[in-house]
């Protein structure tokens, strides 16, 4: 063994420790970088050689700069992010719908419904009374207005959900492009045998963010690239190619968007709306938006239409069989649209009677049988308590409305529970990830000192080597 090999060992020490210090400083500076995973320098002894019959090392070598990473955790984070994206989206919309049906702090449709029938009760007590008749016209109008108000607000929620698809789609496209381009860079670096740790961190983060928007699965290829597809199987990223999502108005669904995807490297767009919003696909923001737009709010609207339809049909049937003060008969109280869908909306039910004398309180011509005839008014008033065959079972109009309020409440509660749950799980997973991949400043500072000391030691070795050299060179002189 020569003095020169001592210097070589010292040199390997200096370089290795300096690299470790660099990795440590990279860790320290990225302590707050989202998605960053802690990196560790893995030392190994350099090749061993025989020195006068003894095996002797040749210094230190950096075997690997290891990224603290758990594949399983990443997968859990991905699916939990999808759940969170879904529940946050649904919760936001349902909370808004909830306000419409909030009969606890303000009066709404339910109160108007009751007021309308109360007005008929009052008419029963005084069938000739003009104030009572005027009240019925006003309450009827109020009721129709409430139907329209709730309907148009629910439609607003649907429209906004539809519009938010534009932003979500743009986000998804952005993430897909990012993942594809990172794929390419990672492949380029790793083909040379290096590890693209930081780029992998960035790609993992992008995958988690994508998962929040839409349900996905992914699979890493041997070349280090990541192939991403929808949970139910439609490719989104293949190597360096990304799919492009686009929106097309659907005439069959109020001009709302359908979502199309042009597969990576492909040319024709495929309709993926039913996959993205399908129950088997992790839903994410996109699925949640579709669900709000096409099923949840639609369900409320259908109930609202049914309520308006049943109300108008029942009232009209009794009303048209009765007689007004001046003998008019066969008149509908509400004017109605052609089909049940639309009864509660614009162009839906409205009060058809304009002359208060035409309100049919009597079941026989009052000009013959007397204007005190209240039989028909009584029959209409008791419609409020009549058990009717409705889609939710046999119940009263008020009961049906209450069950609609209940439905809204349940969907809010569902979304809320799911949001709280996924938030809690995400926190735990984030904690786990942090405990695994997070940077601990204390740890890094300790490492800093450790590597610094090792560096100093190696430097000292060079010093020693130099001194030894000097001694030998002195002999020559």
């Amino acid at each position, binding site marked *: 063994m020569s003095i020169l090999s001592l210097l070589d060992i010292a040199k390997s020490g200096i370089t290795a420790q300096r690299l470790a210090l660099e990795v440590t400083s990279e860790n320290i500076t990225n*302590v707050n970088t989202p998605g960053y995973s802690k990196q560790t320098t893995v030392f190994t002894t350099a090749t061993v050689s025989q020195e006068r019959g003894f095996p002797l090392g040749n210094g230190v070598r950096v075997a690997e700069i290891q990224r603290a990473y758990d594949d399983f955790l990443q997968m859990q984070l991905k699916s939990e992010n999808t759940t969170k994206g879904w529940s946050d989206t649904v919760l936001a919309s349902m*909370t808004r719908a909830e306000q419409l*049906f909030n009969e606890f702090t303000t009066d709404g449709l339910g109160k108007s419904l009751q007021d309308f029938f109360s007005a008929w009760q009052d008419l029963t007590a005084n069938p*000739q009374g003009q104030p009572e008749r005027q009240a019925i016209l006003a309450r009827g109008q109020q009721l129709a207005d409430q139907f329209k108000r709730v309907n148009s607000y629910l439609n607003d929620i649907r429209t906004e959900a539809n519009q938010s698809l534009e932003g979500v789609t743009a986000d998804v496209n952005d993430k897909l492009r990012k993942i594809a381009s990172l794929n390419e860079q990672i492949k380029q670096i790793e083909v040379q045998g290096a590890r693209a740790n930081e780029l992998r961190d960035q790609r993992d983060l992008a995958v988690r963010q994508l998962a929040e928007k839409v349900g996905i699965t992914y699979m890493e290829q041997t070349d280090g690239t990541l192939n991403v597809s929808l949970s139910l199987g439609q490719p989104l990223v293949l190597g360096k190619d990304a799919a492009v999502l686009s929106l097309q108005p659907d005439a069959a669904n109020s001009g709302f968007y359908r979502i199309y995807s042009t597969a990576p490297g492909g040319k024709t767009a495929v309709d993926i709306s039913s996959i993205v919003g399908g129950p088997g696909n992790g839903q994410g923001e996109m699925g949640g938006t579709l669900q709000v737009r096409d099923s949840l709010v639609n369900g409320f609207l259908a109930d609202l239409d049914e309520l308006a339809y049943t109300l108008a049909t029942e009232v009209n049937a009794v009303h048209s069989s009765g007689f007004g003060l001046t003998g008019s008969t066969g008149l509908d109280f509400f004017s109605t649209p052609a089909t049940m869908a639309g009864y509660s909306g614009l162009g839906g039910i409205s009060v058809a009677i304009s002359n208060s004398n035409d309100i049919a309180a009597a079941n026989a011509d009052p000009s013959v049988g007397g204007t*005190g005839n209240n039989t028909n008014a009584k029959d209409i008033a008791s419609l409020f308590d009549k058990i009717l065959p409705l889609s939710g079972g046999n119940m009263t109009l008020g009961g049906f409305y209450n069950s609609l309020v209940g439905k809204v*409440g349940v969907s*809010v509660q569902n979304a809320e529970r799911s949001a709280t749950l996924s938030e809690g799980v995400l926190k735990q997973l984030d904690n786990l990830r*942090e405990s695994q991949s*997070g940077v601990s400043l*204390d740890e890094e500072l300790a490492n800093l000192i450790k590597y610094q000391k090792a560096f100093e030691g190696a430097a000292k070795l060079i010093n020693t080597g130099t001194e030894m050299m000097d001694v030998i060179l002195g002999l020559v002189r």
Partner: protein
Amino acid sequence: MRVTQNTTANLVLNSLQTIRRRTEELEQQAATGVKINAPGDDPVTAQQILHMKSLMAAGDQYSRNISNGISWLSMTEAAMDEMGNVLTRAKELTVQMANATSDAKARESGMNEIVQLRNQLIQLGNTQLNGRYVFGGFKNDTPPFDSTGAFNGTDDSITIEIDRGAFVPINYSGGELLRGGTPPGSTGTDIIGVFDNLITALGANDQTAVQAELPNLEDALSQVLSTRTDLGARMNRLEGQKNVIEEMKFSLTKVLSDKQDVDFMQVISDLTKQQTAFEAAIAASGKISQISLLDYLS
């Protein structure tokens, strides 16, 4: 488990946020006084509350209907009471006139009084409440009796709803009460007809004919009386139902308050607790995040 600065920071953030969220909930409860502010807070209870509220509103409406009914029946009862007096007076007079001691002159003055009593009876048959003739049936905006005593009203019952599906008539037909049905006397005693007969008999000074009307007057009195008894029963039913509604509303209010109202003591004490927890969390996090190896490195 490894704990990093970020773990600590996240923990602090999360716990502060949890406390804040809970505080906000409590503050909302304290401000509104109700536990359930929206259907999503508790859908099942929310539905129950709505149902109870609608029951209470319906109860209010039934109470109003009952009040209306009670005023009609009270007015009717007052009229019937007076009719009873008229009939009693007519009977006294007729007993006198049926006596052999009464002469033609006395009978003539008796006849005059009977004519007056007959008019009074017709007038009572035309009793009004708020411009409506209580004995007119459905034709209650024109006087049911004309000066000849003919009944122009209808025999229809005006019914009101006093509970879900429970209807009570609040009127009596003047025709049945004073004319004994249509045609007069077909189902009961034609009281006006009895008076007409009396007037004819007295005018003719016909003692036998006057005497013949005595049992008829007796029947007339019992006809009015039995109607009054029936009216009393209806009144009882209305009053009873009114009490039932009041009691229902009272117990509903209690249940509703139980389900909906906030226990202020509880909320305020919880709020204070949250306040303390918040301060403690802030103080602790301040302490924890201060300590780092960096402080000990020169």
